[in-house]
């Protein structure tokens, strides 16, 4: 096996592959950071270039774009409050709040170090435990998926701030929003009011941009005029480097988050967004140091989200390479890349093309290390934008938000929908209703509903199927605990008054 790794290392270190790694990573960072393009779109745009490349160079390029995209999504999230990627939403909530408190460089360091750590962790896990993760992911049927989403939703208590009632209103509103569109099982239209726009459901990027980014500009418009965006001041990267003791003090989060990220990444269809939210929610739920800071700039929340979303890459690639299943949108695009080069990802790949599999392992490892340097370059570039006059800066953010919504399907209906969500987000913020639970529910709602209904179809309507396996029992018990425990601890949270 060592031979395979050494051979793969020698191949990846060839000049053309190194160049592909740098270009792919830079493109990924840009695609991830810009709101109009997602990581998967970044990978798709590169696909056409890979026809003429050798398979190894093609995969090094695509892996660079994939990892760069997941990493880059958080740069604009922290600096400007615009999530470059859906998986960066928890980063907007905590990272941007830290930046607004005058410590953007600190937030950027925490994000960068945690991202790289999460990415490296998952690659190492991927190399060591590929067969184990693949078989564990296969044990997840509809009841387990339902239990997993319920666990994910149960973190509302941690995201609700002072009032759990308001948090639950936000959460159930998000669950309702997730039902809009064509029903995935019966094909019936729900709440579309005969409009074509709503047939496909509400894209959560549209909702997220409106609820988080645009509504924040409206809130900031209430402030008196300022020449520059005073909240985000750059004091120099090196001066804000976080001490090692900071990470040691959140040891549990640093261990748990990449594990969650890797496992959730390995679940087909889950991906970085759900990984980031679950890990963030777990951190919020179990926070011992300054739990009240969640939603207002909690370092622990930022760490948890960043470790997990990058760690999901290893998990997603694991099931892609071992089972041929896409763990995320982006790895679904990777299947196309395999087909372009005459390969089929799956159990046979390791025996038929070990050079490619081990090459991907090695390139993921090296790309994560390379991203440490490249991301600092990208950060410096984006920080320059802070020197813009605030009024123009705000207008630019609004235009980027419009592009983010428009770029999804190239139509103005999504932009109008985003505008509607910005008004909802503004009203929610004005009346202290947390936005995060709504987005969490919108992300998880579809999977929760479909897995519940599929479970009940399998059991002929018996709800006992939901507690028929140890995995779902443990997950549901965890969910119950995370809802009940804060209520026992702080009964006033339920009152919401």
């Amino acid at each position, binding site marked *: 096996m060592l031979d395979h790794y050494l051979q793969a290392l020698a191949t990846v270190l060839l000049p053309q592959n190194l160049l592909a790694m740098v270009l792919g990573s830079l493109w990924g960072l840009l695609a991830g950071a810009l709101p*109009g393009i997602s990581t998967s779109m970044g990978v798709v745009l590169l696909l056409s270039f890979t026809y003429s490349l050798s398979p190894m160079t093609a995969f090094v390029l695509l892996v660079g774009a994939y990892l760069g995209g997941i990493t880059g999504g958080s740069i604009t999230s922290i600096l400007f409050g615009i999530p470059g990627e859906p998986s960066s939403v928890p980063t907007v909530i905590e990272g941007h709040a830290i930046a607004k408190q005058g410590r953007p460089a600190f937030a950027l360091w925490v994000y960068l170090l945690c991202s790289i750590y999460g990415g490296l962790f998952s690659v190492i896990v991927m190399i060591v435990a590929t067969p184990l993760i693949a078989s564990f992911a296969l044990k997840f049927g509809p009841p387990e998926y339902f239990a997993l989403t319920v666990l994910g939703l149960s973190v509302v208590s941690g995201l609700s701030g002072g009032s759990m009632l308001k948090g639950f*209103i936000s959460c159930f509103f998000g669950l309702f929003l997730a039902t809009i569109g064509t029903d995935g099982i019966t094909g*019936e239209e729900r709440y579309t009011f005969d409009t074509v726009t709503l047939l496909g459901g509400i894209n959560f990027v549209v909702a997220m941009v409106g609820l988080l980014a645009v509504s924040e500009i409206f809130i900031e418009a209430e*402030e008196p005029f300022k020449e520059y965006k005073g909240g985000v001041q750059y004091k120099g990267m090196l001066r804000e480097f976080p001490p090692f003791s900071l990470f040691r003090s959140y040891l549990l989060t640093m261990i748990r988050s990449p594990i969650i990220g890797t496992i959730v990444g390995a679940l087909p269809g889950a991906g970085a967004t759900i990984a980031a939210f679950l890990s963030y929610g777990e951190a919020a739920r179990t926070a011992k140091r300054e739990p009240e800071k969640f939603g207002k700039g909690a370092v622990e929340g930022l760490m948890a989200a960043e470790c997990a979303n990058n760690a999901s890459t290893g998990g997603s690639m694991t099931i892609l390479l071992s089972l041929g299943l896409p763990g995320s949108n982006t790895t679904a695009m990777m299947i196309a890349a395999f087909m372009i080069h005459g390969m089929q990802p799956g159990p046979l790949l390791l025996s038929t093309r070990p050079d490619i599999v081990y090459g991907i392992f090695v390139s993921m490892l090296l790309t994560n290390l390379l991203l440490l340097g490249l991301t600092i370059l990208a950060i410096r570039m984006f920080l320059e934008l802070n020197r813009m006059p*605030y009024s123009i800066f705000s*207008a*630019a953010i609004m235009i980027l938000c419009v592009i983010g919504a428009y770029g999804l399907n190239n139509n*103005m209906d999504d932009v109008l929908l985003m505008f509607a969500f910005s008004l909802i987000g503004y009203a929610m913020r004005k009346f202290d209703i947390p936005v995060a639970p709504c987005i969490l529910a919108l992300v998880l709602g579809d999977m929760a509903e479909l897995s519940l209904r599929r479970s*009940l179809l399998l059991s002929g309507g018996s709800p006992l199927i939901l507690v028929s396996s140890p995995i779902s029992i443990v997950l549901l018990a965890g969910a119950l605990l995370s809802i009940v425990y804060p209520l026992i601890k702080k009964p006033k949270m339920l009152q919401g008054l």
Partner: protein
Amino acid sequence: MKKGEIVFFAACVAFFGFMLFETFDLLRQGRPGEVGSGLWPFMALAVSMLLSALMLIASIQKSIKAAGQGAQEVTAEANAEKKRARVTVTLSIVCFLAYILVMPWIGFILASLLYIFVFALVLGERRRWVLAISPVLMTAVIMGVFAKFITIPFPKGIGVFAEFSRLFY
């Protein structure tokens, strides 16, 4: 804020109630013995409506309590500041909506140029060089990155505006 809160939660109750009413149609559909497409949204909406109603009652109670304690004095300055903030936010929202609505007619470039200029004015920007240079620069950068490099097919507008847009993308 209490009055606003009452209106907000009353609107929530009305919205969730209306949607819940729409759900009854969905509940009636589907095959017997199967969980249809109406159950999940019914649960979400019923809980949302219930919680909103609870918040509405709590807000009304708070409002009555506050009225009993007598109104707090608000300074003229605070009132003026509040009014200014409201006007700015309203204009920002109107500006943004106008930008979105006008874009398909006059095209992305002109709409963005106008939007950056007007939005900066609304936010209180009065420096002439900023108002003159920034919209052009910003639009040029955005066009370069998104229309030329990433080739997002932005709206071109109609008639003479479309001709103008075609000069650039």
